[in-house]
């Protein structure tokens, strides 16, 4: 019996994995980057792609090698070697994946913390989702409202407070890499710092019924001055449909807070 040519296989894995990683990294998988969260997430993805390429290479090389080496000749009725296992090997292929996986988890955690850090001067914008449209409220800049179009200043952190009026929707701007569901009866938030001016699409990413496919809004990232100018032109009139469900919810919230002692500012619709 020949010794296992481990070296040959390792070499094959290295070549296969490297080639695959290099090819895969040529592509800009996630598309354009337009927020500060995009860079760390994309790097995380690249690292993951490299590691995955090598894992995939190991599996392919091992399978291919075995097939080439130990494929039975036609008519060969004999059996293989009665090997039942090898404790050392089994320990190795338990421990190494544990290490890889925990490493990646730790890295992901760090990235998560990084992209969810909040600034004290963050701009708060309310985003209301309902079948099948988006409405935005700007409580910090004179209670302005806009429908179907969102404007934000560049290079300043924005925190979107999401509210759903009927069913679950999801707030997603692919170039920002950030997604969060808007859930009826719950306030969720999206933290993002846009760092590139331009026009993007806000996509509803959670199935919400007939019009889910077309539930989009335009996102404009622009300089602070332009943003202010645009905002001045917007209305202070609260859009009708929003009031309906929200008020009811608000009333409940208020009652709850009254009963539990302190009343806090509702923060949802300042009027």
């Amino acid at each position: 019996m020949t010794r296992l040519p481990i070296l040959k296989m390792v070499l094959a894995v290295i070549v296969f994995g490297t080639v695959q990683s290099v090819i895969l990294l040529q592509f800009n998988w996630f598309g354009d980057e337009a927020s500060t969260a995009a860079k760390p997430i994309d790097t995380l993805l690249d690292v993951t792609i490299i590691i995955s390429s090598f894992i995939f290479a190991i599996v392919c090389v091992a399978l291919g090698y075995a097939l080439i080496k130990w494929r039975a000749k036609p008519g060969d009725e004999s059996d293989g070697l009665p090997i039942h296992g090898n404790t050392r090997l089994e320990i190795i292929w338990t421990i190494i994946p544990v290490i890889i996986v925990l490493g990646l988890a730790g890295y992901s955690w760090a990235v998560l913390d990084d992209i969810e850090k909040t600034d004290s001067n963050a701009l708060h914008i309310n985003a209301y989702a309902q079948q099948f449209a988006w409405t935005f409220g700007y409580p910090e800049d004179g209670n302005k409202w806009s429908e179907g179009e969102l404007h934000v200043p560049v290079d300043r952190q924005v925190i979107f407070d999401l509210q759903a009026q009927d069913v679950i929707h999801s707030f997603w701007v692919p170039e920002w890499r950030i997604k969060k569901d808007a859930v009826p009866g719950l306030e969720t938030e999206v933290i993002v710092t846009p760092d590139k001016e331009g026009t993007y699409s806000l996509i509803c990413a959670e199935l919400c019924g007939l019009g889910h496919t077309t539930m989009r809004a335009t996102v404009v990232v622009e300089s602070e001055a332009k943003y202010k100018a645009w905002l001045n032109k917007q209305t202070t009139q609260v859009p009708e449909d929003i009031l309906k469900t929200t008020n009811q919810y608000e009333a409940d919230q208020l009652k709850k807070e009254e009963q539990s002692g302190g009343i806090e500012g509702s923060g949802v619709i300042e009027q």
Partner: protein
Amino acid sequence: MESASIAAHGHVDDHHHGPPEAHQSARIDRTILGILLFILSEVMLFGAFFAAYFFLRVVADPASWPPEGIELPVLIAGINTCILVSSSFTIHYALEAIKHNNHRGLKLGLTTTWLLGATFLFIQINEYIHIGFTPRDGAFGSIFFSLTGLHGAHVFVGLLLLTFANIRAYRGHFGPEQKDHLGVEVPGIYWHFVDIMWIIVFLAVYII
């Protein structure tokens, strides 16, 4: 093989010997293990509703629980609890009786258990009628009626099983060997489960 003649119309020829006896590879009886596993899945079904209970009460954090104006009849439910708990003892008595080949005791135990269970169900339905709110009244109404109703449905199924056991007991079935009184033991296990589940439901819904 010789199977052909057996399959078609229940025609049994002389060579027929049926399937070989299966090897018994665990000490536990199949039916008992079956009912225990079934109870495990029932526990998980209750678990789903208790999860909902947790979300509605703790996570959604309503202003008061139960909502203002709702007074649960704890006393009556408490009495009802005692009734159901005592029925666990009577069914145990019935099982012990038949293990000692005491058919009178078996019948007595089974009948009492059945009556106690039916009383429980009757009081529960009565409570529903007079409780003053409906399943439509807020999340509390939903979870109250779902948990107690789910349990009530289990009592009903338990009663059905007990009915069968009663019929068979009065027809003189059952004997001291385990295989001869599985028809009492299995409904008994189920009944104990229904009983314990009630205590948990009672504590969750009425007490805490």
